[in-house]
C-alpha cells in the first residue's frame, strides 16, 4: 500500500495517490457489514407491507402468526411509539398507510422463511381511501388528503429578487419550458439493515447508516433512553447516497421486536423492499421561464417547481442553489412546492435537488442559447459567477456574501479543451447523413459543503500506533482513508500505523454524519484539530527528553526531531513508552464557512453522444467530468468519486425510473431486472475522462473541498443538450428512452394506427 511520492514539497501524505486503507478488508470479506454480523440467539425479522397506496387498517389479527412454531415476536402499529421518525411525518408504524410498501406489522422468528410464512398468516382488513400520485394533482381542490393540514408540506427556499415580470418585459427574448425528473431509485448496493441488541436498559444497534448520531437521536426518543444507554455502530456501509442520512423505520422495528422477543433481532431489507421503502430520489416537475438580453446576459428567471415528497418526507427536498449561486441573474424568483402524495416515500439522494435543478436550468439555458444562435458555452461563461461576485449566505436569496475560490471557469475551460468543444456543430442535427448522428453538449453545476457539527478523537498508544475514532461513516467515499491521511500528514506518522474506528457513537464525539459533501470538510477539520492536539502533547513529552523547546520539534516517519539538528531525535514509540501514558487529542468543529465569504464547489461536464436515429439508442462516445475539488487529499479516491458519481448520473439518463401503475399506485419495477440499473457494459469507464481541478479551499483541511454529491448532477442536462445538438430533438423528461428519442424524431407510425387498450 505504498503511497506514491507527493508532487507538493510541503506535503508528504496529502495529495498522493493510493488505495483505500480498508480495500483488502472490504474485498476479502473481513470487513463486517451489518448483514454479516451474527449474534448468539439472534432472530430474523420480516415486515408486513401495505398493498394499497392509501388505506386505513380497520382490523388486524396476528394470533395465527403468533402460534406458528419458531415465531418469537409479532408487533403491529399498536405496539409502535406515536412519535415521528426524525426529519419525517412518519411514525414507525401506523394504522393508516400512505404508500404501497409501507410497513404496519412485523415478525421476528428463528429463521427468515418462518418469519415470511408468519406474515402471510396475519389477517388484515383495510378500508381503502382515495389516493393521489401526482404533485400538481395533489394540490388541486378536492384531491385526496394525506394529512389533516393538507398535502402541501411547505415551500422550500422561496427566493424573490427584483421583479421577474419587469425582467421579462425588459428581455429581448423569453421562453418557457417544462422539465420533469421522475421518482428514481437511489442506488445503494447494501439494502437497509439493522441489528438490535438489548442488554437490560441498554440498546446496542448495528445498522447501515450514514449518520449514526441521527439514528442515536431517534432511538433515544423512540425508547426514552439516556444518551449513554444507546450505542449505534455503522462501521462498514455499502452505499447510502442520502437514503441512509436520516433514521429509517427499519431500525426502530428491529429494536421493538428485539425488546418484545428478549433476543437480538436482525432486519435486512430485500432488494424489493430497498427499492419500495428506502426514501428514494424524489420527482420534480419544473416550469422554467427565462429571459435574456441581446448582450447574452440573463435578465430574468422564474422557476416554479413541484416536488413530489411521497408520503412522509418533510426534511430536505428542494432544488439546489444553481439559480442563486452559479449564474448572475438580475430578476429572480423561485417557488418550490413540496407536496405529499401516495407514492413511495422519498428523501435526499446524491445531490438532493441539484441534479433535477441542473437538468431544468441547464436545459432551458441551452434551449435559449440555441434559439438566439449563441454558443452555449460562451453563454455560460458570460453569466457564471466569479470570485468577488455577490452571493447569498442564507436561504433568502439576499446577496449578502461574496464568492471566493470559485473554480467554475477553470472547470469549463479545462473540460471544453479536453472534449474538444470546438468540434461542436453549431447547427443542431445539420450536415449528418446516415442513421447515426453525433452531438456535443455541456452542463455546469455547483454545490456547497461542510456544514454542521463534527468531532473526532485521536489516540496515540504506548508503542506509537494511532487509533482514530469518528462517528461519521465511510459509505464508500473513502473517508476512512482520507481522514487517516489528514491525521498522518499532521502527525508525521505513516498511514500503516493507523487503525480507524468509524461510525461508532460510543467511541467518538458527536458528528452529524456523512452526507452533503461534509465528511472531508467537517470531520476532516475535527481530525486535523485532534491530530494537532496530539502533536503538541507529543512535543511537550519529547522536549525534555531531547533537551529542546517544544516549538523546536517536528515529527516525520514517527521520529521526533529537533529542527536543524540531525543528531537529536527520538522515535515516537520511545517518547511514548518513556511517557508511560497514552496521548488523547480531540477535535470538534461547527460549520466550515465564516464571515462574508462564501465558497462553493462547482463543476462542468462535457459529453459527445451518438444517437442512432433508427433504433433510438444513445451511446456515450466521450465524457469529461471537470470538478473543482479544492486540494485533493487522495487523487485516486477523488477520481474514483468523480467517475462513480458521473456514471450514477448517466444511469438516470438511461433507466432507473420507478414505474407506478396509476390505477392502483403499485410500483411495477422494484427489482434490478425491470428497473435496469446499468452494468459495466453500459458506461465504459474508459470513455469517461476525469479532471480534478486543484483550487484550494479557505476552510477545508489542507484546502480540501467536499465533492461526493457534485459529479451526480450534470449528466442528465449534458446528455439532453448533446442529444439536441446531434438531432435537433429536445428531451425534457428523464430517462431518455428509445420511445422518447424515436418519437422526437418523428419516425413513429401515425397515431391513428395505435390501438389503445
Amino acid at each position, binding site marked *: 500500500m505504498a503511497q506514491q511520492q507527493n508532487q507538493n514539497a510541503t506535503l508528504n501524505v496529502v495529495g498522493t495517490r493510493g488505495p483505500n486503507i480498508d480495500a483488502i478488508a472490504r474485498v476479502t470479506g473481513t470487513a463486517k457489514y451489518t448483514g454479516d454480523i451474527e449474534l448468539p440467539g439472534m432472530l430474523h425479522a420480516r415486515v408486513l407491507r401495505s398493498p394499497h397506496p392509501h388505506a386505513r387498517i380497520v382490523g388486524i389479527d396476528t394470533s395465527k402468526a403468533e402460534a406458528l412454531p419458531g415465531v418469537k415476536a409479532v408487533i403491529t402499529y399498536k405496539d409502535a411509539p406515536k412519535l415521528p421518525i426524525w426529519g419525517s411525518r412518519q411514525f414507525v408504524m401506523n394504522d393508516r398507510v400512505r404508500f404501497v410498501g409501507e410497513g404496519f406489522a412485523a415478525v421476528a422468528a428463528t429463521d427468515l422463511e418462518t418469519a415470511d410464512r408468519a406474515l402471510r398468516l396475519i389477517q388484515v382488513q383495510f378500508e381503502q381511501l382515495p389516493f393521489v400520485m401526482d404533485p400538481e394533482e395533489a394540490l388541486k381542490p378536492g384531491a385526496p388528503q394525506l394529512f389533516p393540514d393538507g398535502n402541501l408540506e411547505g415551500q422550500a427556499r422561496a427566493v424573490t429578487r427584483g421583479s421577474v415580470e419587469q425582467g421579462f418585459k425588459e428581455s429581448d427574448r423569453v421562453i418557457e419550458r417544462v422539465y420533469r425528473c421522475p421518482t428514481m431509485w437511489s442506488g445503494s448496493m447494501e439494502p437497509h439493515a439493522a441489528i438490535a441488541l438489548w442488554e437490560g436498559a441498554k440498546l446496542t444497534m448495528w445498522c447501515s447508516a450514514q449518520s449514526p448520531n441521527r439514528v442515536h437521536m431517534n432511538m433515544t426518543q423512540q425508547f426514552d433512553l439516556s444518551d449513554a444507554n444507546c450505542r449505534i455502530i455503522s462501521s462498514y456501509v455499502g452505499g447510502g447516497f442520502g437514503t441512509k442520512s436520516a433514521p429509517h423505520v427499519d431500525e426502530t422495528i428491529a429494536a421493538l421486536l428485539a425488546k418484545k422477543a428478549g433476543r437480538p433481532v436482525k432486519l435486512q431489507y430485500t432488494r424489493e423492499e430497498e427499492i419500495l421503502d428506502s426514501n428514494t430520489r424524489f420527482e420534480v416537475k419544473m416550469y422554467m421561464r427565462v429571459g435574456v438580453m441581446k448582450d447574452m446576459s440573463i435578465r430574468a428567471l422564474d422557476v416554479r417547481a413541484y416536488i413530489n415528497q411521497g408520503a412522509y418526507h418533510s426534511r430536505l427536498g428542494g432544488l439546489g442553489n444553481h439559480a442563486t449561486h452559479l449564474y448572475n441573474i438580475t430578476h429572480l424568483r423561485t417557488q418550490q412546492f413540496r407536496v405529499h402524495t401516495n407514492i413511495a416515500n422519498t428523501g435526499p439522494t446524491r445531490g438532493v435537488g441539484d441534479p433535477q435543478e441542473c437538468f431544468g436550468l441547464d436545459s432551458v439555458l441551452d434551449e435559449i442559447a440555441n434559439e438566439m444562435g449563441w454558443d452555449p458555452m460562451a453563454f455560460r461563461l458570460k453569466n457564471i459567477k466569479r470570485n468577488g461576485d455577490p452571493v447569498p449566505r442564507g436561504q433568502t436569496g439576499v446577496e449578502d456574501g461574496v464568492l471566493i475560490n470559485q473554480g467554475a471557469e477553470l472547470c469549463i475551460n479545462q473540460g471544453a479543451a479536453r472534449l474538444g468543444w470546438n468540434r461542436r456543430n453549431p447547427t443542431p442535427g445539420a450536415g449528418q447523413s446516415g442513421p447515426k448522428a453525433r452531438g456535443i453538449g455541456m452542463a455546469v453545476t455547483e454545490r456547497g459543503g461542510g456544514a454542521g457539527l463534527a468531532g473526532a478523537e485521536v489516540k496515540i498508544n504506548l508503542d506509537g500506533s494511532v487509533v482514530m475514532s469518528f462517528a461519521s461513516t465511510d459509505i464508500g467515499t473513502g473517508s476512512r482513508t482520507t481522514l487517516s491521511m489528514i491525521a498522518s500528514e499532521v502527525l508525521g506518522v505513516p498511514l500503516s500505523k493507523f487503525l480507524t474506528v468509524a461510525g461508532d457513537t460510543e467511541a467518538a464525539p458527536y458528528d452529524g454524519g456523512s452526507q452533503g459533501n461534509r465528511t472531508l470538510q467537517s470531520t476532516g477539520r475535527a481530525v486535523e484539530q485532534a491530530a494537532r492536539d496530539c502533536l503538541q502533547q507529543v512535543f511537550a513529552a519529547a522536549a525534555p527528553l531531547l533537551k529542546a523547546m517544544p516549538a523546536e520539534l517536528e515529527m516525520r516517519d514517527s521520529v521526533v526531531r529537533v529542527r536543524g539538528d540531525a543528531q537529536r531525535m527520538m522515535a515516537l514509540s520511545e517518547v511514548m513508552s518513556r511517557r508511560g501514558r497514552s496521548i488523547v487529542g480531540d477535535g470538534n468543529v461547527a460549520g466550515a464557512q465564516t464571515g462574508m465569504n462564501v465558497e462553493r464547489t462547482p463543476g462542468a461536464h462535457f459529453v459527445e453522444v451518438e444517437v442512432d436515429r433508427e433504433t433510438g439508442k444513445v451511446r456515450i462516445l466521450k465524457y469529461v467530468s471537470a470538478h473543482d475539488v479544492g486540494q485533493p487529499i487522495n487523487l485516486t479516491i477523488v477520481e474514483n468519486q468523480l467517475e462513480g458519481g458521473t456514471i450514477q448520473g448517466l444511469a438516470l439518463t438511461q433507466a432507473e425510473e420507478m414505474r407506478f401503475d396509476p390505477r392502483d399506485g403499485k410500483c411495477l419495477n422494484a427489482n434490478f431486472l425491470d428497473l435496469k440499473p446499468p452494468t459495466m457494459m453500459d458506461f465504459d469507464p474508459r470513455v469517461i475522462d476525469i479532471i480534478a481541478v486543484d483550487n484550494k479551499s479557505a476552510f477545508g483541511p489542507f484546502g480540501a473541498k467536499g465533492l461526493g454529491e457534485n459529479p451526480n448532477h450534470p449528466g442528465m442536462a449534458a446528455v439532453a443538450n448533446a442529444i439536441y445538438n446531434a438531432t435537433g430533438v429536445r428531451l425534457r423528461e428523464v430517462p431518455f428512452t428509445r420511445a422518447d428519442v424515436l418519437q422526437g424524431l418523428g419516425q413513429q407510425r401515425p397515431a391513428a394506427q395505435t390501438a*389503445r387498450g
Partner: protein
Amino acid sequence: MDNFSYARPATLRDAASQLGREHNRVMLIAGGTDVLGELKDHLREPERLVPIRHLKELQGIRPSRTGLRIGAATLLADIAESDVIRQQAPVLAMAAGKVGTPQIRNMGTIGGNICQRPRCWYYRNNYPCFKHGGNTCFSAAGENDFHAILEGGPSFIVHPSDTAPALVALGATVRISSGSRERSVPIAEFFVTPRQDARRENVLQPNEIVTELEVPSAPAGSKAIYVKEMVREMWDFALCSVAAMVTVQNGVVQNARIVLGGVAPRPYRAAAAETALVGKALDEASATAAGEAAVQGARPLAKNAYKVPLTQAVVKRALLSLA
C-alpha cells in the same frame, strides 16, 4: 418461498410419473433461473419440485440424420460455445450467447429457455391476469412499454426467449415425453398465441417434459444472425430481437427465415418479410422493404409504438449484415 417436497428422479420415466394432471401443483426444475424467482415471488406455489437437469435422457449434443439433437438439459453456455452448433446452426449459438448474463447461461438450459414464463411486470407482480387464471390483461390499458405489438390480445405478453426465435428460424422440432408416450411437435406449433390459450405460452401438457430439440442443419450456403436490442447492454430481455437466416445464390435470395422475439406473445415468424426478400438481391432496398413488411399488421399499444420503427430497423440491419 413456501415449503415443497423435492424428489430426485433417477430416470425420465420416474420424473414424468411424478407429474400430475394440472399445471403448477408439481413443477419441473432444471437450471431454476426462472422457477426459483417464481417461487420466491409466490407466483406459483407447487407442492413438489421435480429436478430434471441431471437426467441422462436430457443430455448431450449429438448428430442426427438431418442435423443435431440437443438434449433439453444442455446449458445455454454450452450451446453458445459448441463448435458443432456454431458450424451447423450458428444462429442458435448466437441467440444462446445473448441470454441474460454469464451466470444465467451457466445455469439455464435450452429446454428451460423455451419454456420460461413471461417477464410482464403485471404477471411478475402477481396481478390476477390471464396467466394467473384471471380474465384481464393489465398491460392493455396500463404500463405497456415492453408489451406486444403483434398477435397481442387478449393477453399482450411478449415471449421472452432468445433461443426460441432462432429455433423457429431453423425449423426445429421439440421432442416431448410423458414417460409412457412420446411426441414430436414442430417448434412453430409448440408456441401458442393468447387467442389459442391465454393461460399458457406453449402446448406442453401438465404431465409432459421437453426432452430434446431436433435442429436441422442450416441450409448449405446460408448465412444467419441473431440481433437483440435491449434497454441496457446485457442482463436484459429483448425490446425486439430477430433471428434471420438467408440463402443467396447468384446474387438473389433463394430462401429467407425471419423470426422476431420480444414483440409478440410467441416467436413471430415474419412471413411477409420473407416473401418481400425472396427473389430479390439482398441490398438496402430489399432489406428496408423486409423491415417494413415485418411489422405489417402491427397494432401497438399506448406506450410501445416505438417498437414498430425499432423492429423495422433491426430487421433491416440484420439482413444487411448478411449481404
